[in-house]
């Protein structure tokens, strides 16, 4: 009900009441007159027997909720808040910061975890994941086994569970013919991907089945962003050609802004155009995406896929002489996941941890403000008691107090929204760059609703505690207790003490969490990543597509020439390149190898090894240590000499030691020729320092496998703009159609791989610091309030001969008791709660004793320092002044 109609209905209520009462009196008078009483006497008697008309009206009206009372409370509350400026500002800021931080984190949690994905009926979308526990090495992957092209055809043709199904892969392509050559992000899709996602193009049409015919018309779709950036949103792009990897592709459509496939953003969508006749079983490189038929569950769809796996093995082969049912050893099991879960990945752990942390800070902030309110209400006890004695109902007084605290909460909420806006910007700039759905984070209506809810809740929370404590049927008693009562009973401090205990305990939990993250970070920093001095290692990715240079041998020549030109730039110490740098996160290549001196029985499953391709001088450039042997030379590369390097852990596994590996020979399934091991390099943490270094084989060819490589340039000038310009010139002097992508330093790649950990660390650190400060303020407030209340008593003690040191110790002991009990409770809570962090920790257990002891010591000593200030004040009390004071 709006308060306007409330006001009107109230006016009518009073009009009706007074008319009704008047009729009552009139009727009584008439009756008495009829009985023979004089009119004057009758009027008097009627009034007397009726009672106080005004009071009756008021009491009748009070039955209904009243806006006027509420407005009065609001006015009164505002007056109280204005009167206690310092109190209001401190309370407001404390709560506003708490609400702001919570709203900011909530908007991230909401945008990333809670909101459905941006597709029609997104809950039907699934990611086609498969696990392959029987494929050693591969099972380490979080993402399991991806689909091969032949699998896609089998699934697409034979399934009963899906409306549509497709595979896609992200990559890069060079776009030329427009100003500078540019490397763009591409999504190559099969038929069925766009159909499953069901997002209509902004203009033009989807890629159609006819676009998927190999060697047919070559077509491409643009993303909204790329269309705006390169074509200024020109409608006439449809039908025009774009030079992609040096071949013309006709633009057939533009996808609307915000459209993504899963979480990957892209500039172009091109058809995969599989040549069905040339497919084999292997080639598990594609992401599968599908839309379930309505009513089909994930379990049913899993069963449907499991049914099709034998069909897949029967329909395709890996070439003559191979056993198509070999893959039964891999124990492939479909394990579909909702697309949303796939997109969010494991980031939800972090976000919930951060949300819980910030929620705890909010509780601590509320406890602080509740304490302020307690002190203030206690000071107002006399006033409240007088009001109660004058006839105010206690529920009315409580309402007044609550209106005041809720108003403070709401004002803080308004401030908090402003802070949250800044907070979201901060979070986005700090957040891991690979945080999914970043673009969907905003302060939307849900966040606003959450903020308002939080403001009301916090207002009620810190208003209710003093209200319950000081107001009640016993309020009237307080009139008698004056400030002259000697010392204060423990009873009166109990609520405040409990609040402080809670604060200290929560602060401990947060600080322990932050401490564990700091230890994790330290541990991670001590791990040798497998390269040195990443800051001076300039990276860039260069791709030489088949359409630009067909002959593999020329690819090698061009790359060699680029390396030479880069090496000639002043300040460059060395140059090398590889299929990818550690931690870059490009799709890795895993396969089996066979050592010449080992006997392999049929059907024995070989572990998968990471395959990388490196140029001569690559390890010298990255600073990766050669444990034994040497790197290959360009002569060996051009001469296609069968040489190979292995990682230390692989050498140890196969031949017992690094030195024993030199001169041994190995091969893979593709290469029939035996390759001689000429070098052993230190283990490299390819997937981030948290992960164990994989057993790796470093090949030097063939050139066809190395069309897209990352160049690494060792130079003091890394990162400087002038240096980058010279690098561009050097590359273009070799071939002006080459584009440079992912230009960054190795340090940047390394930092990004730690982004998750450092983000959590920073968030927990901020929360822990806030909790520490708030908790200390809480202890300080309680102790110094207690000292001020006990001035007289302490004065008497001193006058009677107590030593000043005793007074100091007495106050400090009280503070220490609070801190110790709070810490003890906190340790118990932290023991249970830090287990939730286990997934984020590295090299340290969730119950790390060092962290626990250090944090507890820190908290207790800071608390003692906070208590020392009021304790000193107590010690210096002049008994005469204190006693004369009242």
């Amino acid at each position, binding site marked *: 009900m709006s308060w306007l109609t409330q006001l009107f209905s109230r006016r009518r209520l009073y009009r009706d*009441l007074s008319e009704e009462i008047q*009729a009552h009196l009139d009727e*009584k008078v008439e009756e008495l007159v009829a009985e023979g009483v004089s009119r004057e006497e009758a009027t008097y008697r009627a009034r007397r027997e009726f*009672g106080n008309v005004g009071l009756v009206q008021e009491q009748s009206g009070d*039955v*209904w909720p009243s806006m006027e009372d509420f407005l009065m409370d609001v006015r009164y509350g505002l007056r109280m808040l204005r009167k206690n400026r310092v109190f209001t500002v401190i309370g407001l800021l404390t709560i506003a910061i708490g609400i702001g931080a919570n709203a900011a984190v909530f908007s991230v949690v909401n945008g990333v975890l809670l909101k459905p994905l941006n597709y029609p009926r997104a809950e039907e979308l699934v990611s086609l994941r498969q696990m392959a526990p029987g494929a050693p090495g591969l099972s380490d992957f979080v993402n399991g086994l991806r689909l091969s092209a032949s699998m896609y055809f089998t699934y697409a043709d034979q399934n009963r569970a899906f409306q549509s199904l497709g595979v896609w892969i992200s990559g890069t392509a060079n776009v030329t013919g427009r100003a500078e050559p540019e490397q763009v992000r591409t999504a190559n899709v099969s038929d069925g991907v766009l159909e499953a996602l069901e997002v209509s193009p902004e203009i033009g049409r989807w890629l159609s089945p006819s676009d998927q015919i190999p060697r047919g018309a070559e077509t491409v779709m643009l993303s909204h962003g790329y269309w705006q950036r390169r074509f200024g949103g020109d409608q006439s792009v449809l039908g025009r050609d774009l030079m992609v990897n040096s071949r013309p592709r006709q633009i057939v459509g533009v996808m609307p802004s915000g459209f993504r496939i899963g979480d990957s953003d892209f500039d172009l969508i091109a058809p995969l155009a599989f040549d069905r006749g040339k497919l084999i079983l292997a080639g598990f490189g594609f992401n599968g995406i599908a839309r379930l038929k309505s009513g089909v569950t994930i379990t049913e769809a899993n069963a449907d896929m499991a049914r099709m796996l034998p069909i897949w093995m029967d329909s395709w082969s890996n070439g003559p002489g191979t056993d198509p049912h070999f893959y039964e050893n891999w124990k492939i099991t479909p394990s579909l996941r909702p697309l949303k879960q796939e997109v969010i990945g494991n980031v939800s752990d972090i976000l919930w941890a951060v949300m819980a942390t910030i929620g705890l800070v909010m509780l601590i902030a509320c406890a602080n403000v509740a304490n302020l309110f307690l002190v203030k209400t206690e000071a107002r006890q006399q006033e409240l008691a007088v009001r109660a004695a004058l006839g105010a109902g206690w529920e009315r007084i409580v309402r007044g107090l609550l209106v005041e605290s809720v108003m403070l909460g709401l004002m803080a909420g308004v401030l908090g929204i402003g802070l949250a806006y800044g907070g979201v910007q901060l979070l986005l700039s700090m957040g891991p760059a690979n945080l999914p759905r970043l673009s969907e984070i905003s302060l939307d209506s849900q966040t606003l609703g959450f903020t308002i809810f939080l403001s009301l809740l916090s207002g009620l929370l810190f208003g209710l505690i003093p209200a319950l404590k000081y107001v009640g049927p016993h309020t009237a008693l307080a009139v008698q207790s004056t400030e002259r009562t000697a010392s204060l009973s423990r009873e009166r401090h109990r609520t405040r003490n409990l609040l402080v205990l809670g604060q200290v305990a929560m602060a401990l939990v947060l600080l322990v969490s932050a401490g564990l993250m700091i230890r994790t970070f330290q541990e991670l920093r001590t791990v040798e990543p497998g390269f040195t001095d990443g800051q001076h290692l300039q990276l860039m990715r260069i791709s030489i597509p088949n359409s630009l240079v067909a002959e593999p041998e020329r690819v090698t020549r061009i790359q060699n020439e680029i390396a030479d030109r880069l090496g000639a730039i002043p300040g460059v110490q060395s140059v090398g390149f590889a299929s990818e740098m550690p931690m870059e996160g490009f799709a890795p290549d895993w396969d089996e190898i066979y050592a010449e001196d080992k006997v392999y029985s049929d059907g024995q499953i070989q572990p998968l090894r990471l395959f990388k391709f490196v140029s001569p001088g690559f390890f010298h450039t990255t600073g990766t240590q050669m444990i034994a042997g040497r790197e290959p030379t360009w002569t060996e590369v051009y001469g296609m000499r069968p040489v190979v390097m292995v990682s230390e852990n692989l050498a140890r596994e196969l031949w017992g030691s690094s030195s024993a590996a030199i001169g041994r020979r190995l091969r893979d399934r593709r290469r029939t020729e035996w390759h001689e091991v000429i070098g052993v390099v230190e283990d490299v943490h390819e997937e981030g320092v948290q992960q164990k270094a994989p057993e790796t084989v470093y090949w030097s060819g063939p050139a066809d496998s190395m069309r897209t490589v990352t160049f690494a340039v060792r130079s003091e000038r890394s990162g400087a703009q002038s240096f980058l310009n010279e690098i561009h010139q050097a590359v273009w002097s070799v071939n002006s159609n080459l584009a440079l992508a992912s230009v960054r330093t190795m340090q940047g790649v390394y930092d990004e791989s730690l982004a998750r950990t450092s983000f959590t660390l920073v968030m927990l650190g901020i929360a822990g610091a806030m909790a520490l400060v708030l908790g200390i303020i809480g202890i300080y407030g309680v102790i110094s309030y207690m000292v001020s209340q006990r001035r007289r008593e302490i004065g008497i003690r001193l006058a009677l001969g107590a030593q000043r040191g005793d007074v100091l110790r007495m106050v400090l002991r009280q503070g220490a008791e609070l801190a110790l009990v709070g810490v003890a409770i906190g340790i118990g809570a932290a023991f249970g709660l830090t287990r939730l962090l286990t997934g984020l920790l590295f090299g340290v257990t969730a119950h790390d004793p060092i962290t626990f002891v250090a944090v507890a010591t820190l908290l207790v000593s800071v608390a003692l320092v906070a208590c020392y200030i009021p304790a000193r004040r107590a010690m210096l009390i002049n008994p005469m002044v204190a006693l004369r004071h009242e």
Partner: protein
Amino acid sequence: MTTALILFYSRPRVKEPGEEGKTRSMKKTPQRDLFPGALEMMILRMLKRQPLHGYALVQHIKRTSRDLLQIEEGSLYPALQRLLKEKLVRAEWGVSSTNRRVRIYTLTAAGAKHLDHEVSSFERMLEGITRVLAPGES
């Protein structure tokens, strides 16, 4: 919450013969108060027989109780508002037998049910009190 509110507001009392004419501030004699809800119960009982307006209600209660219960007439109105709020009675403007514009109250179905419940619990309480007060037993 509503019960708490209802409890809190002023209560009708049983008057004693000599009390009339005393000022309001002197009427703090708790043992003579009707218990909370008694007036409401009686109103509902009266309305069960027939719809009535305020004045008629007072007269009926007085007459039926043979003036043993002299309720303060005004206290009827807050009680009626409480019953209206709980939707136990309904009010409509109408014309009384003496041709006056009055608000006539009618019992609702919920009111009838509430009355039955109240009466039975009141009777149990009364029986208990009577037994305790009964003379003869030690």
